[in-house]
């Protein structure tokens, strides 16, 4: 597909005897918010790890735009424009909020050891610009005023926002969000939904979201992909997915009525 920002073709991953992903292909179109759902152990996070480079697939290839990035290390993929957050928040616990976000700016910085030791104009200007950019991101994510707070001391919901701000600081083309609403209350979830929508529009960003909260997924994402036992069993609009018998059987089976009534 020509306008696909991120593509994966025929991805297979085995852990010992377990097939975590079985010939999975995805194609993420620009400026869309893709949802990725499926029961626990379906392989959602594994697919994220393949896309961001933490797991080398046993078969298949990953493309960013037209570039094959299957062999690239995670930090190189970040340079190229893949940003991600983690299911279990992974902030740098000893760093302040702004330092966490500044780490995200790392790959866009160029100052080397000599710049740093001598304190060249380049390194000073770079650092000033980076800080200004971080403030803007803090503003955007509603974290202003919390610059110097130690990240690990923030409440859960705010930590999630720091993680997203940190990923945005890398200036990604594709943002992979692994259960961004976990641990958030209803109000926070709504804010998050509007925020992700605004991001894709304002920043020419494409998002792939793993999410367990059906209401959020159905109202935020289109299309939605469903993984089950390492296989992509369905892809389509929220309505299609909810109507698909395979999905109902594999995932929504017990809860189909409930989801149906909510939608």
């Amino acid at each position, binding site marked *: 597909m020509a306008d696909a920002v991120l593509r994966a073709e025929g991805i297979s991953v085995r852990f010992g005897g377990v097939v975590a992903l079985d010939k999975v292909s995805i194609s993420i179109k620009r400026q869309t918010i893709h949802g990725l759902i499926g029961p626990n152990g379906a392989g959602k996070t594994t697919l994220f790890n393949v896309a961001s480079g933490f797991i080398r697939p046993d078969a298949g290839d990953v493309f960013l735009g037209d570039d094959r990035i299957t062999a690239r290390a995670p930090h190189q993929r970040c340079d190229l424009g893949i940003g991600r957050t983690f299911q279990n928040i992974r*902030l740098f616990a000893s760093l302040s909020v702004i330092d966490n976000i*500044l780490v995200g700016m*790392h*790959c866009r910085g160029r100052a080397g050891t000599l710049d740093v030791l001598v304190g060249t104009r380049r390194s000073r200007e770079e*650092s000033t610009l980076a800080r200004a950019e971080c403030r803007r991101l803090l503003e955007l994510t509603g974290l202003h005023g919390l610059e110097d707070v130690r990240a690990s001391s923030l409440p859960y919901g705010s930590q999630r926002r720091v993680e997203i701000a940190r990923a945005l600081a*890398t200036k990604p083309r594709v943002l992979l969000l692994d259960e961004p609403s976990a641990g958030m209350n209803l109000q926070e979830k709504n804010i998050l939904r509007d925020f992700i929508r605004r991001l894709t529009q304002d920043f020419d960003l494409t998002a792939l979201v793993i999410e367990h909260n059906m209401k959020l997924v159905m109202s935020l994402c289109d299309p939605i992909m469903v993984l089950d036992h390492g296989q992509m069993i369905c892809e389509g609009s929220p309505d299609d997915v909810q109507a698909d018998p395979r999905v109902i059987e594999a995932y929504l089976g017990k809860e189909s009525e409930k989801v149906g009534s909510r939608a």
Partner: protein
Amino acid sequence: MTSKRWQATALAAAGLLGVPLVVGNPYILHVGIFLLMYVALSSSLNIVLGLAGQPSLAHATFLGVGAYAAALAALRLHWPYWVNLGFGGVTAALLGLIVGLPSVRVRGHHLAIVTIGFAQIVRLIEINWDRLTSGPMGLPGIPTATIASRPFGRIGFYYLFLLIAGATLFVVNRISRSRIGRALAAVRDDEMAAEALGVDTRYYKVYAFVISTFWAGVCGAAYAHYMTFVSPDSFTQADSTTILCMVILGGSGTLFGPVIGASVLALAPELLRFASGYRYMLVGLVMVVAVIARQSGFDRLWKRTAAMLGRLLPFGLRGRLHRNG
């Protein structure tokens, strides 16, 4: 840096510069020289241990490598001491690069053991490669450093080590507050997240080892020219452990923590000389008490003490860097 901090730093620097002018006692100067050496060693270990979070139990080995490199360069090649300072640093950094490479794959305690193994190998080379190192006999007769063809003397070496300690602290300070320092902190706190955010974790781990061991090597070269003698017994596992203790005791990852740790552990044996045979037992006791006090709120303890002392002391114990544990 705030102007207050500048003032404090300038004051401390002036004080340290003035020491040899006031103190004539060679024994006290000698203790001062070793103290400054340990400040440089613990601060350089702090780069790899505190900033990057990678354990190294071989720091004295790099001191030894720098010392042997300088000794051999002086004895065999007749290089002047100031060239040897750089040579010792570079040689140690090259070995630091080799030790840093396993850190790409090996983590935590396992890496600590790798560094111990490396220390053993280097020690065995020092002992057994007779033709190069003269084995256990060591290398005597290393020419002392001179300035305008006059020997340095204790005062000269005091200033040399002051320069090295200051340079090491300067490097730690600058790096830790830069994008490089944040990358190292990211590696220390969470390698996976660091990678995901574009930090080349392999590069920065090796980087930390190289910078850290470079300064240990420079120290070693200065040590060789000061003592005019090096032998395998001068750079043991126990010395590496002592330096490690200095960093942890003072607070790894902080700027001034290792300085405090080095001061306590380098001065304690001297101050406890009156206890003769019980001296090192007491040093051990000091360490145990200090670590327990630290664990259970050294900061609060310090704040209370600092409040009591008013603002007499220029530096906070915590330093300005991020605490690691």
